[in-house]
């Protein structure tokens, strides 16, 4: 990636390739997209299979976890319950039914909430997305920003400081940090609000997107928006710290590598302004490794939310997953597994597509 990217003036031979591809009938980016989408569908199917098999391998009887002691003693009721939940059929048939349901948008019925799992997910997923989304935004801005600063000020004090900070960010366990942050900012300094997504006395905004901040804005409720944004700050920052650390380190080394390239030196020699060199040459080339890391980091961010949600009593998918697992609520467990898996897929897809956009060679591979 390093010696080819972007410098048009340096590498005029790059130009004909897309032209050649266009002649064959479709844009290479379009073909690339179709290929990636097909792979994603296959992978999604794989996820359903894996979550189904893993869920059904769990020791413990869902009937015992869900029926009362007395009902358990009555074989007729147990049989009825098993039949109602399709547990009397062979596993492959259960899987076929599960898959058919999924294709129709039916995730099954949660055994704990007795509601469609899709309805539960629709309630919990937005809370997690709001949290993880805020965290990833903060991470991208701060992580890339810090990395660039550290690279440009290589071996100076600010570079050393940022490197130490990023190391701390990567090393500190998220749940511990969550506890400490909650204690310090909420309890000691009293500058952040406590548990949950919004002040209980206010209640939530009428759900439209499920994202509390957006819904509050849509409803024109500034008080709810302020409360929701305030509740978001600490958990999002806690969650972001690891990703910030990671991105700072990767951005720094990617930028340093590009800075050492001949074409950057050439550009400098030509007297191009620093801003142009930084944004047009350096950052653009450094972006591919940064995106890779950001994609991967989003994964760890999702798993991090389970603990952060527990500590901040954030009503997201983490709490739902925990509750489902401990009550052997198999449809809910599979639903959560599928959603998380698909989110990973989508992130990977986005990362792949971004590669294609940034680096034309990728589309042609």
């Amino acid at each position, binding site marked *: 990636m390093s010696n080819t990217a972007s410098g048009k003036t340096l590498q005029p031979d790059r130009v004909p390739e897309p032209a050649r591809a266009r002649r064959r009938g479709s844009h290479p980016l379009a073909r690339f997209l179709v290929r990636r989408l097909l792979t994603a569908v296959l992978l999604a199917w794989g996820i359903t299979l894996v979550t189904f098999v893993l869920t059904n391998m769990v*020791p*413990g009887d869902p009937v*015992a*976890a869900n*029926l*009362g*002691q*007395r*009902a358990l003693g*009555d074989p007729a*009721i147990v049989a*009825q319950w098993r039949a109602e939940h399709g547990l009397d059929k062979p596993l492959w048939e259960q899987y076929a039914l599960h898959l058919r349901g999924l294709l129709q948008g039916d995730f099954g019925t949660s055994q*704990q*909430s*007795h509601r469609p799992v899709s309805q539960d997910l629709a*309630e*919990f997923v937005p809370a997690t997305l709001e949290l993880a989304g805020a965290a990833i935004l*903060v991470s991208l*801005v*701060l992580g890339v*920003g*810090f990395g660039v*600063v550290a690279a*440009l*000020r290589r071996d100076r004090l*600010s570079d050393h400081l940022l490197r130490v900070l990023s190391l701390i960010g990567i090393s500190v366990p998220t749940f511990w940090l969550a*506890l400490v942050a*909650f204690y310090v900012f*909420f*309890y000691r300094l*009293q*500058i*952040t*609000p*406590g*548990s*949950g997504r919004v*002040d*209980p*006395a206010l209640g939530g905004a009428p759900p439209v997107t499920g994202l509390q901040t957006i819904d509050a804005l849509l409803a024109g409720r500034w008080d709810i928006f*302020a*409360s929701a*944004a*305030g509740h978001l*700050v*600490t958990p999002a920052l806690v969650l972001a710290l690891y990703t910030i650390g990671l991105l700072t380190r990767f951005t720094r080394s990617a930028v340093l590598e590009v800075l050492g390239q001949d074409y950057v030196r050439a550009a400098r020699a030509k007297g191009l*302004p620093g*801003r142009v*060199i*930084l944004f047009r040459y350096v950052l653009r080339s450094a972006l591919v490794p940064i995106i890779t890391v950001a994609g991967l980091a989003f994964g760890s961010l999702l798993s991090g939310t389970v603990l952060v949600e527990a500590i*901040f*009593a954030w*009503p997201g998918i983490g*709490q*739902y997953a*925990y*509750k489902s697992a*401990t*009550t*052997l609520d198999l449809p809910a467990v599979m639903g959560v597994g599928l959603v998380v898996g698909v989110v990973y897929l989508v992130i990977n897809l986005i990362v792949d597509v971004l590669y294609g956009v940034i680096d034309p060679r990728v589309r042609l591979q």
Partner: protein
Amino acid sequence: MATRSQTAAVLLAGALALAACGSGGAQAPAAQSGAKTLVIDTSFDLKTADPGRTYEPTGLIVGKATYETLLTFDGGDVTKPVPALAESYELSEDGKVVTLKLKQGATFADGSPITADDVVFSLTRVRDMKGTPSFLLDGVEVAKADDSTITLTSKQANPALPYILPNPALGIINSKLAKQNGATTDPQDKAEQYLNSTSAGSGPYLIESFNVSSQVVLKANPKYYGTKPAYDKVVIRNVEAATQKLNVQRGDSQVALNLSGDQVAGMPANLQVDKTSSANVIFLFANQNQEISKTTPNAKFVEAVRKGVDYAGLLELAGEGATQAPGVIPSQILGALGADQAAKRDLEGAKAALAASGLSNPTVKLEYPSELTVNGLSFQPLAERIQANLKEVGITVDLNPAPVTTALDNYRNGKEEMGLWYWGPDYPDPSDYLVFLPGKTVGERAGWKAGSDKTVEESGEKAAVAVGDDLRKQAYADMQTKLNASGPFIPLIQPSQNIVTAASVTGLEYHPVWTVDVADLGVK
């Protein structure tokens, strides 16, 4: 070029930090905002808001607030049932028939009057739907004698019935409304989803929103015919114990229900701490089934364990407010043994018993739920302490923790060699503890089959049919003494129930069945 981007990054970081402080600092704690909202933090154990299926602690709090029962208890006193929807009750001399007169003028939240038909439907539904609490009314016939009289008839003497009726699971539902939404009196009942979103009861509160894993919001029932509750809105949130403590200290919540003895030590003076020994009894058992173990069915082995456990040490672990359990029946309930009858550590006696057992250096497997906490007390340190205690006796204990769903399976199927579990009262009556007898639910779990201990079984049968407080007290004490002498159970401790409330909250009293009656709480 460095300076520009650097400035941008720094500015951005600063803006974020400002945003963090700004929006957070503007937040006023709920208690001070003027709206009478009560926030209760608890670790959720919740499945449903359908009273007929409710059995979990959090569900009982919700059930108590949204439904009314025929009888109830006054405050935390569970020794005497008092009228609620029924203005009076009478137990026949043979203990088989309870006759209840309905109060006049009581109405459901939709304004319709509560009738005898509603009562018959509600109770029959609980019994025949075969939900978790249906055993409460096993073998009880519910009938309407006239428009305001209900009779509950049991085949055998059932003096516990008046103590069972206050259970929120037996809350009276608006039968017309419930039937329209799928309620039936058999296992086909489909009303749960409806009852999870709307409460069809007559309690002081209504369900505003209900979520089994995050929070339940209650609002005052505008048509409640009794004393209006002090809070317009009650938010019950699912919060980890460590966070509960900080929330209540900061004023973000007004009640914290699940703090351990350690966590309430050194609470600031502006908070009220209510410490009472809970009605949960933690016990140890040694499986009596020869197929499960060659070691634990040995009576001398059980004696060695009973004498080898350091009860005082366990109490220390449990923290202030906890008490040793002299028998399986907790101290609050009729028939409980006196503290003087509690087992004491006798290391020499334990060693002698082990020697007499004929076992040399036995190794046993102790199973327990790893992540379960009872009143903030975790099973792990208890198990470790017991392991150390028994090591001194000469018994090697292999600790075998498992997640509660997995552990519960083994426990219920009677497959644990030794187990560490607890029993909370389903209703505050000693008859709830007959399950510890041979052949009964918990007895079977300990591999104690029916017919294996005639003395204990006879004393249990006698206790079950005794009528009159004095007779029952005696009979149940006798049953426990015999259970302690030859049974496979070793009652350990009743951990402390610590409830922390803000100074503004009045009227809190711990209740062994529904933990706290939300409608009883006032504002100072």
